[in-house]
């Protein structure tokens, strides 16, 4: 090329580099968008299918009546809805405080000798198959203490599943609370427990609520541990010491039956389960939402 001070050849080279970077950028963004789309599409497909299949089963009686024997049309899943709410309430009341306490212990008292073992135990429990937890609760509670299938045993099995979920999620959230806030509180002359109760946990509130919702949602869908503990029940019951129905159990029984009518009801119950979990989460969020600003 022509002689001169500007190296002409360098410029097309620079264009090529820029073009290559743009192409790489485009490809990366494209892949990310694709992954996002797949994720959302999957979610929408599941929800859409559940709604489409379940909607025909939904009427008022579905919420207010107990299941009818095969051959009779109609009937509902009222005992299962009540059972799932009761199980969630009892297991949540047990597991959420225990899980939060374990996380506080692990994060705020990390220099203690037991912090690491507690953390390790939570990790181990979260790795246990839920049916194993069900068998365990059956062996130690249903079989030997209570003497029969009981809602309480189901709630405890669910609580065992929830504790490590709450503990590990809350642990992450507590680690995100800036040390400078703890320091400020200590410098004001607050004892440690007060620093935790009035500064650390309130700062982490949103995350703690998310952890609780996550654990409740997960346990509300558990079937295996309930088969051996709560058993299921055709009748409405809120008695903690008797067998109780739950939505996953109801879905399971209807789904494995050879009757088309029951299959529709299984879909209907699935839809109700999804909505119940969503509503419980929403209500928890509203009840604990930020009131400042």
């Amino acid at each position, binding site marked *: 090329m022509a002689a001169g001070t500007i190296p002409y050849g360098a410029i097309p080279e620079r264009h090529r580099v820029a073009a290559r970077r743009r192409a790489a950028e485009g490809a990366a963004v494209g892949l990310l968008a694709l992954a996002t789309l797949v994720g959302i599409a999957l979610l929408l497909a599941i929800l859409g299918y559940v709604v489409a299949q379940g909607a025909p089963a939904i009427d008022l009686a579905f919420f207010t009546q107990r299941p009818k024997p095969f051959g009779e049309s109609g009937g509902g899943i009222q005992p299962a809805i009540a059972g799932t709410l009761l199980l969630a309430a009892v297991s949540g009341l047990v597991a959420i405080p225990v899980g939060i306490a374990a996380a506080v212990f692990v994060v705020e008292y990390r*220099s203690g000798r037991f912090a690491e073992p507690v953390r390790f135990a939570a990790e181990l429990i979260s790795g246990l198959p839920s049916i194993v937890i069900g068998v365990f609760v059956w062996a130690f509670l249903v079989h030997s203490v209570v003497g029969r299938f009981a809602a309480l045993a189901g709630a405890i099995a669910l609580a065992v599943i929830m504790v490590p979920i709450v503990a590990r999620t809350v642990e992450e959230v507590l680690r995100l609370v*800036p040390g*400078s*806030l703890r*320091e*400020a*509180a*200590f*410098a*004001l*002359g*607050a*004892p440690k427990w*007060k*620093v935790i109760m*009035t*500064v650390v946990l*309130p*700062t982490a*509130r949103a995350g703690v609520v998310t952890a609780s919702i996550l654990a409740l949602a997960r346990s509300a869908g558990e079937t295996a541990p309930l088969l051996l503990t709560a058993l299921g029940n055709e009748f409405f019951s809120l008695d903690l010491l008797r067998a109780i129905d739950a939505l996953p159990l109801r879905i399971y029984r209807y789904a494995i039956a050879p009757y088309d009518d029951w299959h529709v009801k299984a879909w209907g119950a699935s839809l109700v389960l999804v909505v119940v979990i969503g509503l419980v989460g929403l209500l928890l969020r509203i009840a604990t939402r*930020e009131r*400042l*600003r």
Partner: protein
Amino acid sequence: MLSVREAAREDEAAAVAPSDDMRPAAALRTEGLSAFYRGVPAIADVDLTFVRAAVTAIIGPSGCGKSTLLRCIDRMHETTPGAHATGRVYIGDVDVYAPHADPVEVRSMVGMVFQKPNPFPMMSVYDNVAAGPRLRGWKMRRPDLDDLVERNLRRAALWDEVKDKLRRSGAALSGGQQQRLCIARALATDPAVLLMDEPCSALDPIATYRIEQLIREIASDVTVVIVTHNMQQASRVSDRTAFMLAGEDGIGRLAEVGETSTLFTTPADERTEAYITGRFG
């Protein structure tokens, strides 16, 4: 820049008659204070007397243990895992490191302001100021607490800016306002001593100027200790200056302490002179 210190001195002289208060002039004193991280000494043998109701600046190059010294005074040092301190610190006549001394009690006598503004984000402006009394379990009636909050926001020269947003989050304020909120929070429990660890290092010059003014005002009845890496700031706000330096061994020691005007004009120690004239650090 206008000398905040001189302005404040004049104001004070006009407003406050010579004190007939019989409290000792030394509000705060360290004796043979050494601090360690995981057994490794960070500062050694610091003997330092802080004059009551005056501002003492601690200056020195990075890593000389200025902040460590400050944090030893209210036993915040030991909240760092593996950290401990030996020696004596007296606040008034209370021995902070006496075997029966409760660190929570010690911190109650001292206010602390940190490098980065750290208002509690989930608390309102009002609740931030009320946090000290509440965390200590003071039983106060609402009107009394309202008074306390207003009084301390005024002391921190923040009241006029926030009186209409007391219910907003403390984190919604600007950086300079947040730091003044932290000062109000630290003052709310009426500490005899206020410790400030580079309180302006995250702030712009205007916010810095306001805080320096404020420090002068606070010092009319509170003993202020301010750590700063900014020598101009030390000369603007402080009555006395302590110069710290880490030796060859990496351990911080007190090199010189004196009246700020003396220390910055005719330092006794040649290392002080070298530092303040910018030859190192």
